[in-house]
């Protein structure tokens, strides 16, 4: 089992209007930055993933990206898999547990 750094880029699909990107693009010449085109604004999600090998890591990253991190109706994902970084002993988490079972009822 190894630990892989994953970077998921979520952006609007080609053909879906990206008014944020268009606004950024229109603004750049005002600051003297000419020659910038095809601006698309998206978001990046970064995490570590434990998996037996790179193929398995990529497969899981793709499935979780397509089922949760993005909405395939309007968004595309691009996944970057980093180098495997040693054994995947879980880090001690300090964040809030957001799993459904932890919600107050």
């Amino acid at each position, binding site marked *: 089992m190894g630990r892989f750094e994953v970077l998921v880029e979520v952006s609007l699909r080609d053909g*879906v209007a990206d*008014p944020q990107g268009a606004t950024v693009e229109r603004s750049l010449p005002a600051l003297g930055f000419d020659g910038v085109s095809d601006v698309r604004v998206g978001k990046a999600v970064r995490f570590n993933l434990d998996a037996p090998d790179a193929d398995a890591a990529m497969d899981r990253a793709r499935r979780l990206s397509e089922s949760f991190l993005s909405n395939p109706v309007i968004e595309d994902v691009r996944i970057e898999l980093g180098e495997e970084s040693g054994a995947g002993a879980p880090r001690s988490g300090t964040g809030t547990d957001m799993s459904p079972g932890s919600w107050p009822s």
Partner: protein
Amino acid sequence: MSARVGVVLFPGSNCEHDVVEAIHALGGQAEIVWHGAASLPAVDAVVLPGGFAHGDYLRPGAIARFSPVMEAVRAMAAGGGAVVGICNGFQVLTEAGLLPGALQKNAGLKFICTTVELRVESTNSVLTSGMTPGGILSIPINHFEGNYTCSAETLARLRDEDRVVLRYVDNPNGSMDAIAGIRNEQGNVVGLMPHPERACDPLAGSNDGAALLRCLLAAASGVRAA
């Protein structure tokens, strides 16, 4: 016996009391249901209200679809029960896969809070069954992500199957085909961006939303009687 409506409260919902007030004013029973509930009380209809469920983290509705109560909402929808998503509730229904398509940022990148005119299209839904097709309603919208979009195939299906429930007379947000609300195949699940609960008293500027909620109460009573 008046219809009983469950209004789901997610962390970040902010229109649940408006819906409860409106339902009460129309003679129905309404109660708030916490999103963490594993089941629904014995209600005849469920409303997912407006707001910012789970802070709209990731995408509006993306986290809310995992709320425990959504399993019960899903079961209710599958069983033919009336489920209506208003504004953020519509976004939750699309993310949960109970309605097709998605709501993206308004075309003008502006948060829009204004009263718009809507045309009643399909009357084959729990929200519009007693309405006049082509009738014009004046109801407020209040959203940043209300720009309805879907694939060309989905749009063709929505049109062919009479599943567009409401259209904007003057498209305010870039929605495909000026869609303001849609329904599922059976007509028991409806999502809409406008807020009928805010147009339930002439003092609020319009009473047109009350007509829609009356349809919902009538449809919900019918389900119970059946």
